């Protein structure tokens, strides 16, 4: 164990899922759109243009704040953050400074057997910048993204390991996607991170010098950058040096950080309240309405799955991973009724169904199979109309064709054979064809029973009731 303790606070910029931009009517979804095709005089900051607040962006921010256990402000104020750069058309970013929409929340993460509470300082609303595209010796400006609403979530420096950081980010992403305010699609920049990191001797109460790492665009980049910084700062501290307070960038391809700004050259953003937008007074009735519309959050749902369905934490965790999966599971359990236990339904889902979903490359909610159809299949297995192996085959066909389980079983004649006479004939044929094996079994090689089972199943094209076959074989061979 290192003699230093890692202390991390995170700032996460999550792109909200609004139709239009934060302050104008341009579409907020410009992925793959030609450069500057999603712009208008407002987001191009033409002279005399004024912002108008996107109500849906405020609603999504409040929902996120509620999901993160924040206090929702009665009065929120937008502020101008001033700096000049070509990707920032107005020369200032409309953000929030002194009176953000959400403050003082927390997020629980798994830590060993229990959970750990990470405090959220604030969650506020701001607008995204455009982006620069460097082409040879010129730089081009694309302002499609300029003005897209961003939710900035700032944590307290409560994270103590890279694992905790990773768990925090995964949980945060899960929640934001769950409540429908973020796509979770990091490849498309849906979440961008900044990490504040410092090291201090273990059992020291004082914080070490803080270093900020910017432009981390994936969880992997966060992990790699933190690992790199821990190693770098450990070397400095070990050799008796002092860590300099700087802002760092992360070079993904080179796997190293670099100094963007020193403390002396730090930006003075000259924040002041945005005079084009009056303060927002958030009515409590609206907050209550938004809170009522909030779905059950992943960790609460996981706990319920454990207690209500008797699932293990690991299984419950997998099932609540995405809201659509959890919804499917609960619907399937209800539709299956007493035919199967929730645990058996979970096994079928996490086994056969997940494999098929994964192979299809599409999410579960886009598959042709519904919870009711899935439950019908499980019921056929449970009442022994088909056996488990046949069930797997039928499920695959259902997945491909969208047909119901009963239809497939009937058409392909897959119903389980439980007729003792039919099975006895099949057994007789198998025993007659393999006198040597019968002899060896009777000489004590009883593990050949499985081999005989396989032969009988082949004889019946897999439709035999395996329990009945096993019972009949044992009786017949002992004679």
């Amino acid at each position, binding site marked *: 164990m290192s003699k230093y303790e890692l202390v991390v606070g995170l700032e996460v910029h999550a792109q909200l899922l609004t139709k239009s931009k934060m302050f104008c009517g341009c579409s907020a979804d410009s992925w793959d759109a030609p450069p500057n095709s999603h712009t208008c*005089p407002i987001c*191009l*900051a*033409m*002279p*005399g*243009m*004024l*912002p*108008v*607040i996107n109500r849906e962006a405020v609603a999504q921010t409040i929902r996120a704040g509620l999901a993160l256990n924040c206090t929702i402000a009665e009065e929120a104020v937008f502020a*101008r953050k*001033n700096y*000049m750069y*070509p990707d920032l*058309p*107005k*020369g*200032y970013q409309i953000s929030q400074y002194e009176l953000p929409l959400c403050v003082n929340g927390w997020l629980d993460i798994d830590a060993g057997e229990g959970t750990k509470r990470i405090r959220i300082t604030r969650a506020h609303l701001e607008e995204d910048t455009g982006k620069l595209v460097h082409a040879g010796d010129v*730089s081009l*400006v694309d302002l499609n993204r300029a003005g897209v609403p961003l939710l900035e979530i700032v944590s307290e420096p409560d994270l103590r390991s890279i694992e905790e950081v990773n768990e925090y980010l995964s949980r945060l992403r899960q929640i934001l996607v769950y409540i429908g305010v973020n796509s979770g699609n990091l490849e498309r920049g849906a979440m961008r991170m900044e990490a504040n990191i410092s090291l201090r001797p273990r059992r020291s109460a004082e914080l070490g010098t803080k270093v900020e790492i910017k432009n981390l665009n994936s969880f992997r980049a966060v992990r790699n950058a933190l690992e790199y910084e821990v190693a770098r700062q450990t070397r400095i501290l070990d050799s008796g040096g002092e860590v300099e307070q700087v802002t760092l960038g992360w070079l993904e391809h080179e796997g190293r950080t670099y100094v963007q700004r020193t403390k002396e050259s730090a930006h*003075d953003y*000259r*924040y*002041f309240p945005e*005079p*084009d*937008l*009056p303060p927002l007074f958030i009515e409590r009735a609206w907050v209550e309405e938004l809170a009522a519309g909030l779905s059950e959050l992943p960790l609460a749902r996981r706990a319920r799955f454990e207690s209500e369905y008797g699932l293990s934490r690991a299984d419950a965790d997998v099932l609540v991973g995405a809201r659509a999966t959890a919804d499917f599971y609960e619907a399937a359990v209800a539709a299956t009724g007493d035919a199967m236990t929730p645990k058996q339904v979970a096994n079928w889902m996490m086994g056969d169904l997940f494999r098929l979903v994964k192979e299809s490359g599409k999410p579960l909610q886009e598959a042709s199979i519904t919870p009711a159809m899935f439950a019908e299949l499980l019921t056929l297995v449970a009442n022994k109309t088909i056996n488990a192996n046949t069930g797997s085959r039928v499920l695959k066909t259902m997945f491909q064709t969208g047909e119901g389980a009963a239809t497939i079983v009937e058409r392909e004649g897959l119903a389980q054979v439980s007729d003792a006479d039919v099975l006895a004939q099949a057994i007789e044929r198998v025993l007659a064809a393999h006198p040597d094996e019968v002899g060896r079994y009777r000489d004590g090689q009883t593990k050949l029973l499985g081999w005989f089972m396989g032969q009988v199943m082949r004889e019946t094209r897999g439709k035999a009731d395996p329990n009945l076959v096993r019972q009949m074989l044992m009786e017949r061979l002992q004679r």
Partner: protein
Amino acid sequence: MSDLCRLTIHEARDLLRRGEISAVELTRAHLERIETVDARVRAYLHVDADLALAQAEDADRRRAAGEDDSLLGIPLAVKDIITVQGMPATAGSRILEGFMPPYEATVSRRLRKRGAVFLGKTNLDEFAMGWSTENSAFFTSRNPYALDRVPGGSSGGSAAAVAADEALVALGTDTGGSVRQPASWTNTVGLRPSYGRVSRWGVIAFASSLDQVGPLTKDVRDNAILLEAIAGHDPRDSTTMPEPVPRYEDLLEGGVQGMHFGLPREYFVKNIHPGVRRAILQAVDKLVELGATVEETHLHYTKYGMPVYYLVGTAELSANLARYDGVRYGFSAGAANMWENYRQTRGRGFGQEVKRRIILGAYALSAGYYDQYYLKAQKVRTLIREEFETAFETFDALVAPVAPVPPFKIGQSPTDPVELYLTDVLTLPTALAGLPCISVPAGFMEDEGESLPVGLQIIGKPFDEATVLRIAYAFEQATNWRQVRPQLA
């Protein structure tokens, strides 16, 4: 000069209704007037005769089809900080030279819908920062009453155009007095509406919490007509208020009998010109004669108006003008790299006063100074507003001078910025408080052998433009100073 150019909106309206004149005739008369006098007055930055005549023809067609509106076919001028479709918008700055906005201001759109005819864009101090139009990047406008003097500013071009009969009416903007002061110096009526009364959408921003569009007109009735046309809530400007817009023209009558006015002592500043003092005191006598009572009062925070205005206003403009970076539109220096292009574009594109104020504003907001400058100024601003509120518990309105001094001779404006900034001390506190106020002609004064107009300022309660206009109308009807015309021939 064609008599048509002497008309007010309400006079022209009657003639147009009776079919005695057409909008085309009216427009052509004004274009001819511009042709005749503007080389001397220099009110306009941009005139588009073809566009104006096409709009006038359209107005005549609309009237022939049965439409009727006070503004249908009325030729007017617009300060070149307010965008108008099809016309350039420079804000009086090199940095926007050649910029054609692909949109137009809400006020322009509202006037266009009513059938007004846009003659052109008028000169102003760069980004409305100034008192004389001498800060225009292009040229200085002249005072029609004394061509060697400035018309005031920053809406000097609009005021000069109306005073010289080059437009029936004009739009200006008032951030700290830019409608009232030029109105006072050109014998015209200039109104600053309550903050939030008129949309700022499409109006090039100077100081967002102070800017308001206001009418510059020959008389009070026209002012009422034009204000009603541009006022009202605009969903595209979140700072506009939902207050209903009254029919101001119908509320002009009634007089001032029984009204109680306050005369703030602090508005008779040390440097006030005796001619201004005399005119204002005569105006007060006139109001008393008309049945009002006038009582001296105090507005102790008046002296803080200037420092507060120059902290809040410059802070806001330092951000508002950051967008002029040579990247997307307007002037670009074309330097080799980004930072150098910023420096050269802004260094060459902005004039000295604009740069001075950007630096002042950035300083007031910077780390370590924010609390003692910007924040302190905002607190004092609240005190100024509250002091007015208290005054309005006693008075129906306040009356005061507009500018303490007569218009400067061109090139003889004070060179010390602080002395210059004192020019608008009497219009700043009301702007900071967001109050409606008007400058109405109150006579003439002598200065170095020239007879120069003086305006009376009437200050009202928030969103009570109706009372301000009614008082101004009663005063105007009893004095009729507008009959004194400039000698331009």
